[in-house]
């Protein structure tokens, strides 16, 4: 695997899954994993298999639900969709990430002048 790929931070995968399900509606595990890879333009290091740990975690918390269904090409697959509680959680988590992103941005763009301006 190429060393340039991003390692996923703890908990970020859960958020990505929730967001994917919100946008895409009901999906199976492979679909979610592919979608995340595509959106990230193959920049994240995602062992597709790890998606299932995330899915079971989210389901146990009641944020997503699942059912067995049939795919377009007639394969049996387990489909996941986000629940109302999941949507609330996603909103909260997204707000948190926005704030964290802003803070990180400010920290990383700080220069000498910022110190002076504050003083």
């Amino acid at each position, binding site marked *: 695997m190429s060393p340039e790929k991003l390692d996923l931070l703890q908990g970020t995968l859960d958020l990505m899954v929730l967001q994917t399900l919100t946008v895409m509606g009901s999906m199976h595990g*492979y679909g979610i994993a592919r979608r995340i890879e595509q959106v990230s333009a193959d920049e994240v290091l995602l*062992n*597709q298999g790890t998606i299932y740990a995330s899915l079971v975690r989210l389901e*146990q918390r*009641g944020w997503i639900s699942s059912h067995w269904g049939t795919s377009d090409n007639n*394969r049996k697959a387990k489909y996941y969709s986000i629940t109302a*509680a999941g949507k609330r959680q996603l909103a909260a988590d997204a707000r948190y990430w926005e704030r964290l992103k802003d803070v990180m941005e400010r920290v990383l763009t700080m220069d000498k002048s910022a110190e002076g301006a504050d003083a």
Partner: protein
Amino acid sequence: MSETLRLAKRLWAFIRRRPLDDDLEDELAAHLQFAIDDNMARGMSPTEARRMALISIGGMDQARYKHREARGFMTLDIFKQDLKYTLRSLWHDPSFTVVAVLILALAIGANIAVFSVVNTLLLRPLPFPNAHELVWIAPPPTKCGMSCATYSTDAYDEFRAGSRSYQDVTGYFAFSGADNLSLNLGGAPIPATSIDVIQNFFQVLGVHAQMGRVFTPEDARNGAAPVVLLTNAWWKRQFNADPGIVGKAFDMNGQQTTVIGVLPASFDFGAVFAPGTKVDAITPLNLYGPPRDWGNIITMIGRLKPGVTMGRAVDEAARVAPAMCWNNKHPETCGDYKGGVVPVPLKDYIGGKLRRSLIVLWSAVGAILLIACVNLSNLLLARGAARAKEFAMRGALGASRGRIVRQLLTESLVLSGMGAMFGFMLAAVLVQWLAHQGAIALPLLSTLHMDGAALGWTVLISIFSATIFGIVPGLRMAGGNVYESLKDAGPGATASRKHERIRSVLVVSEVALACMLLVGAGLLLRSFMNVLNVDLGFEPDHAAAIKVSYDDSVPNDKDGNLSAQKRGVIFQQILSRVSALPGVEAAGTVDYLPLGQNRAWGLPFPKGVKRPKNIDSGPLVYVISPGYMRAMGTAIRGRDFGWSDLPNTEQVIMINRSFAKFLAGFAKWPGGDAVGQVLANGGGRDLHVVGVVDDVHEENVDGDAGWQIYYPFTQASPSAAELVVRTRMNPASLAGPVLATLREMNPKQPAAEFKPIRLLVNHAVSGRQFFMLLVVSFAGLGLLLAALGIYGVISYSVTRQTQEIGIRMALGASAAHVRGRILTSTLRLALIGIVIGVGASLAGAKLIAALLFGTSPWDLATYGSMALLLLMIAALSGYIPAFRASRINPTVALRTN
């Protein structure tokens, strides 16, 4: 909220993992298929598509593992795995498993049983509601027995009225003898034992009747209709648990007595107040009838008001005591109880004397547990040595050190869990048996049972012992160098030498512990032997006693002289008839047998000598017939009482040597001899000493004999008549003829028990015997375990050195030389252990000193013989492997491996 939900789901997932696993497999299979489809759509060959799909999944196993980790509890899963593995490996090594579980079961069982005893006697509250409020009110312990621990009815009334600390004060009549009640159902009268209690007795203790009611003040008034409460056991035994018994009346001691209630099974008077005796019925004590003038007869028990401290109660009792009178009609007796009214918690009164014995017992079983743990450690080490490669292999395959220690600790836990299970059953049997040993004079024994606390204790000590015996082998094995272990195929490697050193340390500590146990047991055994050899002042063998029922009442007999005469006539007949029975050597009666109850009547003093003020206790009083001393085997200097000592002749007495010696210290008797001297008896008739008799142990076997005074029953009034018969034959063979003779003369004679006098002694020493036997059997167990430990270690090292021994023998070492070498190393270990053990025993001897009798806690003979015994056992357990070693065939030994 979502987290609790998740926890519940995780637990659920842990329990039903199979369907979830299947689900995941289906899901992963679908995932793989989608990926392959996609890749093939992009133009890859089927093989390539599959390969790439697997790569992007990033390992199926890893996916499964992560999923399970998120889904359930890995720790529990691992524990389940370890457990499965442990059970499998134990199953495949049955001899090890059986030995280990057996050792643990014995040690843990002994611990639980002793804990139950300690819990019952010391820790658990008495079987009464709010038992901490109950106090026993008595003077500090003195020489004069029960009589000094009791109060007169006037004193009781004053104390009850004058104290504010109590909800109420009650008591019981302390001098009821066994078989004092005769139940007449038509046939031969049935003997039973009843206790008279003050009517508020059950209210104070907080005991309610199981059926009917308890006493009310009306039941104890003058002229009240006779009523009785049945104990649960007697109700079941004698009355077949008749559900309609309340309200029925029976002939008891010649009076129609109504049963007003049945007491609950949880109430056992004997267990609490009179260990080792059984009480069948409870009757109300009429404080305002004749007992008014009987002197000190009541033991006092009080229930403190909530929040009253012991200190306050003690202070108050000291303030009230001076106002208490022995008899209100004799103002000069007011203040007699000064300093003699001290409340102590009832629990302390009952179990306090046993505290030290129990601590020793507890230490003994603790030592047993440690020895068992050491043994187990040794066994596990030996087993571990055989499994070193297995663990090395697992380590090489990536098992972490913690994981291996965990596996080993799981093994220890499983072993100790199984041991605890069997131990618990063993203890349950033991406790059940103990609870039915009515003859052992230990309080509360009948209330002994296994309870939640015992179960908790079991869990605690099994975890404790698993940790103790599992930790050393666990660390030892997990800490081993993987490479070394894999390489260490044969003997002689350094790792194994280190191994052996640990095992030697374990054996030494085991021997030291066993040595301490043996020394303790030896000291207790020797004490017990000394107790059995005490000169009791009477000959307990070849004599037996039976309670005789007689009617000496004479109408309008003001001073009791007529009834005394009548009594003389009755018993002169009885005694001459009984003495004429074949095999009877002597016969006589007494009202209280030794080692039982007793009483005092004040202090007679040499006539004409001023009595010092500071003596507050008098001699114990026994009222006897002529011939009693000979029947008991007590030597008399002077003369025995005769049938001619009558109410109208001069009042004669006998006194014991101790009392004679005490009196001689005040009077100027020729030669200090009391025989023929006269004592003044505080206003009564003068007492002529006609004989001085041996000191009789009246209260206990292992204490000092106190003062005793004997009155002839034709001049003083006995409270009962115990007929003592001496024979050259087995006393039991006389039971039939004696009872038949008594029946012939008095058809109302109940079939009372014909008790060998030896039984009284056995009963009196039963508590000491009980502890001694327990400690001795624990020491035996310890010795056995230590022997096993030595045998295990030596035989292991012999096996390990087979090759070396083979070489030595090939080079010309003789069999005797090989044997000698092994025996020497065995004895060296044992000696080190013994030295440490003896040192520890010497240091800890103080703990046991109070339990010894006529034996120094540093008794050389005991220490020496026990050390020798241990050394011999060690030599024996080392000899078997040594002998095996000397039989090694060099060619065979060198070919192995």
